[in-house]
């Protein structure tokens, strides 16, 4: 007898061929047990895609607030009724000027005062016979930068605009549509707020917060494209007040956001001898919330996917065990003519893995198709990543191997004499 001159891959190819022929014998059975895997893998792909794309959507919308943003405003809640309640917002022009000069907030990179007219003084912008119901906001010169606001035309506020309380306005996309014809350039034109005329110096780029709005998130309530921004001190003059509604700051880094806000609060408390309480909001806390929500969604999905893969794996185990029993005589024969335990085991492992991989391939397709369908349906872009294909492939490989081990081992350990006698 000649020595084996065969290469190793040729041998595995032969085993693969034997396994394929084995599966071809039971097409329906193979397809059914592959379906379970397909559903599990599709779920895995979908979860990974939703998780990643969801993160992207939420992140990009949160970015419209500035990821390093912090907000400090008065907390009006009274928890000590014996204390004298003072009026006002707890933030004044003097505070703003002092904060500018102070070095006591090292975590704060820049900040802007923000003044909202509030419900008691509704302000409308008008131009000729057109009007806009957009909200007027008084802001400082750092506002646009902190909020990641870009301009489609014109310019933003410069320090002189604020210092001299100039009657200038930066408007959002919605306001522009309310007040101007589509082909008109608003820059240099005038609009009226109450009885005052303002010159429009810039138009804000469109901002998308539709996802946040759709989940009724706090930030989503405010339409970022319906803003009319004017110098805060100009708005103070119009309203006859010295108050500031809130301070929006930008921390030196996302990790320092909380510290920056706390430093502002400490600064304000010192200046007002602890007369007011303040509330802090940081963008980071919303980012963390979004992560938590996505985490919950992913966990639920992952549990569902794991369960379906587990069930599918048990299905393969069952099918393969049945197959081993049905083919007892065949196994005995294979052993009689020289099939070793490793070879028999490999053949059945390959069969189990092939079922699983077949399911995996269909699962990948199913996952991709449903991503596309969901994108078309909800308009949130779900883009599967190449790495998910690798993940899906590996998961189905592992499921196949694990569920094939026991039946394959049983086949390998059959005693040839008994297997050949099996009826």
């Amino acid at each position, binding site marked *: *007898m*000649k020595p*084996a*001159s*065969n290469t190793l891959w*040729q*041998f595995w190819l*032969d085993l693969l061929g*034997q396994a394929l*022929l*084995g599966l*071809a*014998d039971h097409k329906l059975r193979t397809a059914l047990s592959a379906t379970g895997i397909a559903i599990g893998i599709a779920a895995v792909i979908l979860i990974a895609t939703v998780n990643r794309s969801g993160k992207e959507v939420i992140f990009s919308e949160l970015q419209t607030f500035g990821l390093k943003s912090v907000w400090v405003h008065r907390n009006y809640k009274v928890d000590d009724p014996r204390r004298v309640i003072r009026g006002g917002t707890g933030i004044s022009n003097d505070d703003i000027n002092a904060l500018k000069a102070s070095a006591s907030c090292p975590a704060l990179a820049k900040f802007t005062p923000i003044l909202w007219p509030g419900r008691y003084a509704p302000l409308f912008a008008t131009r000729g016979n057109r009007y806009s119901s957009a909200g007027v906001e008084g802001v400082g010169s750092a506002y646009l930068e902190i909020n990641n606001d870009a301009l489609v035309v014109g310019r933003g506020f410069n320090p002189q605009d604020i210092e001299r309380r100039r009657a200038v306005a930066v408007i959002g996309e919605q306001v522009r549509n309310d007040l101007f014809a589509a082909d008109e350039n608003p820059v240099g034109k005038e609009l009226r707020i109450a009885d005052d005329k303002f010159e429009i110096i810039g138009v804000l780029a469109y901002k998308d917060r539709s996802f946040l709005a759709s989940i009724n998130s706090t930030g989503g309530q405010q339409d970022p494209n319906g803003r009319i921004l004017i110098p805060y001190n100009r708005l103070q003059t119009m309203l006859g007040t010295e108050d500031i509604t809130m301070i929006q700051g930008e921390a030196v880094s996302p990790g320092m956001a909380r510290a920056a806000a706390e430093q502002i609060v400490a600064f304000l408390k010192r200046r007002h001898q602890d007369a007011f309480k303040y509330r802090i909001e940081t963008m980071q806390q919303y980012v963390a919330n979004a992560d938590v929500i996505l985490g919950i969604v992913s966990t639920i999905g992952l549990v569902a996917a794991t369960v379906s893969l587990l069930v599918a794996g048990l299905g393969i185990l069952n099918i393969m065990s049945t197959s081993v029993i049905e083919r007892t*005589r*065949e196994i*005995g*024969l*294979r*052993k*009689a*003519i*020289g*099939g*070793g*335990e*490793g*070879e028999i085991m490999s053949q059945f492992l390959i069969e189990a893995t092939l079922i699983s991989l077949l399911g995996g391939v269909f699962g990948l397709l199913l996952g991709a198709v449903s991503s596309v369908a969901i994108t078309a349906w909800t308009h949130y872009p779900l883009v599967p990543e190449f790495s998910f294909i690798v993940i899906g492939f590996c998961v189905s490989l592992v499921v196949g191997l694990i569920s094939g081990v026991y039946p394959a081992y049983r086949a390998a350990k059959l*005693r*040839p*004499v008994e297997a*050949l006698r099996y009826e």
Partner: protein
Amino acid sequence: MIRLEGAEKYYTTGAEPIHVLRGISLHIASGEFVSIMGPSGSGKSTLMNILGCLDTLDKGTYELDRRRVDTVNNSEQAKIRNRKFGFVFQQFNLIPRLSALRNVELPMIYGRLPLAERQQRARQALHRVGLGDRCSHTPARLSGGQQQRVAIARALVNDPDVIIADEPTGSLDSHAGEEIMNIFSELHAQGKLIIMVTHEHDIAAYAQRIIRLRDGVIAEDLRK
């Protein structure tokens, strides 16, 4: 070639063990054609399985080509079966989904021969048993006698020294049985050692040596 000394085999299925082989000593030289006969349950198949390295001894020794084979492990046994033995069973034991050619190829897959050589040798073997034109037929499309000839081709294809045939004609009519025996006689003429179990005297008569078993011992060992 084959030296079996004091071979004993028990089966313990029920309460007390059944003593199937009770001390069999048997020497078979290469190139012999041996028939094993005996009443049902006398241990013929058990003896054949031990000779073919399909089963192990409980007592005694087995030497094949001056080498102890009763003590080797499972994978070594599988290799010995692959190289030294060709098996022919009463039930043919062909794999139903495989063509005749692929069935005959199987032992060479486990012997790790290259594809081209395998196919060539499988074709030759089928030709030799008179089935050169039935290579692509599956067992279901072959008669019993043809199926048994495919099984013989499979047993021959690795060019073994020993053919182990347990009632090879047991499922065939006398004409098909005769064809099988003619092939065996040819193989014997070409120098193969053939050990065959049969109940039929005219089949046993093809052999040069007839061994009769009774209750697990050799009752008679006749040479022509």
